[in-house]
């Protein structure tokens, strides 16, 4: 065999055997990447989603700390400093008709809007997750009845439910949350039900079931962890919808009542005075748009990262 190769002569002493063990095989492939690690790697490569995430963090930080960055308060009136235009040295976002600093009011309003959005999202998830999981898990008659109920709720215009709820209850953070959350959960329930129906047919589920696992264990150990990523994606889309609806209801006057303000209430005030003081509209509107766009883009990024099959 060696005769065919004249330049280099291979002799057995040139080689040394590789120690083959399971550990070495692992070393070559690197440490295993889990589901979340994999998703994070995909997400990190999506520059738009990362920028959106940073904007969300920034808005959150300002909503928490914003009003403390200036020496002014959001309540009371100071008529000697009405309608000061925005400037870097004085009022960063200007002042309104009562001389209140718009910088403070915008971030306090953002805080209210995001707070309501967080409550609505939590409500949406609790109800949607349990409703979808139960409906999909039990199937059959239970599923049928539950599907009919959510179909009826789906047929009811969300806007009208919200308006009616707010007409009956006093406008405020709690009533707004209930009004917006009442109908919104059907979408996440539908998604989760679909995923549970799929999971139910898979082998690992059958295995666990035939080993005698209880219903609680089946749902909590096998179903919920596998629908968790849907929950996260839904969450990203629920937040902007909730912010939008809160702003809409405040805009038509059914939301947060003065002197408290949300982004929608501020935009409404700003729209009325826009002709002479456009900055009263532009700042709250910009924050609102930044929030809705960022959450949507981050949601798209997360969807692509967590469930590449859903990529469009």
């Amino acid at each position, binding site marked *: 065999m060696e005769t065919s190769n004249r330049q280099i002569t291979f002799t057995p002493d040139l080689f040394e055997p590789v120690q083959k063990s399971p550990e070495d095989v692992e070393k070559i492939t690197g440490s295993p990447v889990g589901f979340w690690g994999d998703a994070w790697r995909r997400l990190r490569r999506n520059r738009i989603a990362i920028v959106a995430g940073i904007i969300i963090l920034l808005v959150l930080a300002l909503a928490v700390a914003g009003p403390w960055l200036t020496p002014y308060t959001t309540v009371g009136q100071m008529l000697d400093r009405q309608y000061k235009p925005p400037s870097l040295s004085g009022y960063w976002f200007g002042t309104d008709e009562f001389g209140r600093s718009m910088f403070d009011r915008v971030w306090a309003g953002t805080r209210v809007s995001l707070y309501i959005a967080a409550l609505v999202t939590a409500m949406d998830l609790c109800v949607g997750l349990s409703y979808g999981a139960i409906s999909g898990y039990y199937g059959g008659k239970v599923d049928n009845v539950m599907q009919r109920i959510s179909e009826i709720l789906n047929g009811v215009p969300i806007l009208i439910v919200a308006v009616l709820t707010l007409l009956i209850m006093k406008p405020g953070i709690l009533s707004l949350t209930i009004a917006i959350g009442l109908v919104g959960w059907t979408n996440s329930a539908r998604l989760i039900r679909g995923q549970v129906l799929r999971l139910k047919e898979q082998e690992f589920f059958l295995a666990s079931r035939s080993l005698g696992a209880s219903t609680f264990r089946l749902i909590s150990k096998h179903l919920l962890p596998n629908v968790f990523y849907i929950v996260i994606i839904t969450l990203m889309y629920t937040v902007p919808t909730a912010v939008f609806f809160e*702003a809409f209801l405040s805009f038509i006057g059914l939301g947060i009542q003065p002197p408290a303000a949300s982004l929608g209430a501020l935009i409404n005030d700003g729209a009325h005075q826009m002709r002479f003081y456009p900055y009263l509209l532009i700042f709250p509107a910009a924050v609102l748009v930044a929030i809705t766009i960022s959450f949507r883009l981050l949601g798209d990024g997360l969807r692509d990262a967590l469930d590449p099959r859903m990529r469009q």
Partner: protein
Amino acid sequence: MLKYTLKRLVNAVIVLFIITTATWFLMQLLPGSPIQNFEKLTPEQRVQVQKQYHLDDPLPVQYALYMTGLLRGDLGDSYLYGGRSVTSIIMERLPVSLFLGAQAIIVGLVVGLFLGIVSALKRNSIWDSGAAFLAVLGVSVPDFVLAPLAQYWLGLKLGIFPIAFFESWWHSVLPSLVLSTIIAAVIATFTRTEMLEVLGQDYVTLAKAKGLSRLAVVLRHVLRNSMIPLVTIMLPLTAALVTGTLIVETVFSIPGLGEQFVKSIFEKDFPVIMGTTILYSVFFVGSYLLQDILYGIIDPRIRVAGHRE
């Protein structure tokens, strides 16, 4: 198909009945009497007013009266406007809203289709990213931000459009444009996705291989097949327009149904709120019904399963 349609129809009627009943009873829960300054009226006037609005009857009778009236298309009388019938108020206001909505749909459809087709054909080019950016902006910027900004820039600063009222066709342009943004954005995204899917199909490759011109392939084979699902998203979009008209008509002071609805909420004119709510619900439920039926015609698998996943 008939059985499926009937099932959907029965479902829709049940939904409407539940909505109407729930709304009616919720209206009874509303705080305060429908008649302001009730104590200032003389006893005779009180009796007269209560008779006129059937407020002296027990609740079940009032409910039965309302529901039988509803079947005849009678929505009761407004508490304001000298007791005008709700039906006549709606009939006066509805055409304006329908006009704005129709105009917005046409503009949104044209712009959305254009953006969607261009970005699908020039995939991953600067056109594609530009259209995607516009679509995200269109979905994310709410009407109540866009409407005042449009009033300010296009109406006041540039002076192209009138900023309020509804006196000529020219007055309807700006509100329709604002309304059409979300439609255009949704249709653009949708068209792009559908077209990319169809472009990858074997029959498109075959059409190209046959030597058909690019235009013929796009128009006859790709676009036609991408448009099938589009028929069905038009309807929820139409329903979303209702929310839009509430805002846009209020901002632009346009005497449409949306403006009346918002005004009635402030004036606590319950019969008008109730009548408009029912009309909107019919609109929503009807468009979903139509969509489900269209889905059933287009995709026979749905009929068997009874619903889509």
